[in-house]
């Protein structure tokens, strides 16, 4: 088992407009990309669980051109609302980083 961040070359989160946070997991080799893809670990249900959102609102897209995957979830707090703590959403990646991949 290896943490997702140890397999990825880039693992980042960023706001996509004020309503969504999007995660880019970019691999620098086909082997790691295929390993994560074939593991089947990264499901909408898992993302929904670790980020406490509705699985129906989770989007996961494989982007083969740069051996990467993109995950998008709705923000729990809209950008800049009274309880929001990360306007740019760029520090939301850590729970995803720690997902274990067989």
């Amino acid at each position, binding site marked *: 088992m290896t943490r997702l961040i140890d397999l990825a070359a880039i693992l980042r989160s960023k706001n996509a407009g004020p309503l969504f946070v999007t995660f880019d997991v970019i691999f620098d080799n086909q082997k790691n990309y295929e390993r994560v893809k074939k593991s089947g670990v990264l499901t909408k249900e898992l993302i929904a669980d670790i980020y406490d959102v509705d699985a129906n609102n989770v989007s996961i897209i494989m982007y083969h051109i740069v051996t990467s995957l993109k995950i998008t979830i709705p923000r729990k707090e809209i950008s800049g609302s*009274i309880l929001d703590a990360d306007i740019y959403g760029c520090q939301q990646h850590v729970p995803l980083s720690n997902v274990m991949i067989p």
Partner: protein
Amino acid sequence: MKIVSLNGLLGYGYSIESLEKIKAMDIDYIGVDGGSSDPGPFYLGNGTSFTNRDAVKRDVELVLPYAVERKIPLIIGTAGGSGGNAHVQWMREIIEEIAKEQGLGLKIAIIQSEVTKEYVREKMCVGKIKNIGPGLELTREIIDQCNRIVSQIGIDPYIKALESDADVILAGRSCDTAIFAAPAIKAGMDWGLAFHMAKIIECGALCAIPMAAADMIVADIEKESFTLEPANPVRRCTIERVAAHTMYEQTNPYYIYEPDGIIDLKKSQYEQISNRAVRISNSKFREAGIKTLKLEGTMLVGYRTITIAGINDPMTIKRIDAIFSEVKEFIAGNMAGKIGSDEYTITLRKYGEALPGSIPQSIPNCNLGIILDVVAKSQDIANTICALARARLLHKDYQGRKSTAGNLAFPYSPSDIVCGPVYTFGIYHLAEVDDLCETSEINYVKVGE
């Protein structure tokens, strides 16, 4: 045709090397994105820019005389950071100041793209307002509360303005892509390629190695493809970087959603044509049956006062949630009859705690950073509640307490910081439109001579 993107955001800076390089090229247009909603709702709400005036002025004053002399239109979108009328005016004054200082005579096409509450109400009445995501439902009350609403215009108003002989196109809130796609589409280029190009270069040299939002990129668009090359010789574009940038801050890496339709990137071809340049082809545009414009509106929700402090005592850190609950109860009781608990929101933000999903490890003795955050109906109430909470938190006693002199380490005097008005996004929705120019107005002004 060659289009230069000055940088990722007007006011972020660019290198003089890049400026000298583009001066030696045959450039048709220079564009730059002047804003973003990324820094949150305050700036649209407050009518001020998150970019710095002197830094914005620097970026314009170095390039403007060259652009005017060579008759290269300078296109600035989402002026003043948020693109409201007040923001456009702010940017206009900077340009006029530069023109005066440098003795430049120029014509500015000013595109305003604010909309009225009445416009949004009418759209809602006829069912032409659509949600973008969960969590933000539009109601009549929200529209009433909004203090400023802008529309993200697409290419149409830009093309109209470009048909004049304006030296500068200064536009309010815009799709980032419109700034760069409009001149290419006006020149008859393929829509799919024009928008894909625009999507990449609107961030300046962020798609290059070393990546930089603070430098220029040059796009050369032809009938069948476009080529990207950083102006600064120290940077280069690679297929991986450019393709990776296409997915940046988008919800979907294969589609770009525009007012006119969708750009389909599933079959896009990337080709490394030199050490520093990438050529892209086969990006396709699909026209939408219903055209839409994105609306952004902000509303004032209160006024904020905060206190920043550290807690070093492990006994206090362990009990902090219980202590804070008691502080809230104390304030409610203490101010009963004077300030209702519905007149403010008080939050304790804690920094330095273990995150959910973190891997257990032994943590050395460390301190906890806190922000006592109060948002209230008025600044006076926010100041009062913050002062009471700060004093109570500082001196709150608890079972077994040994450090009885105080619970908080304040880094600053004064401890309480007045932050002013707080805005939130009330509107972030799509409006279906019959005419993509219906939210904008173009005026032409002459400066200097």
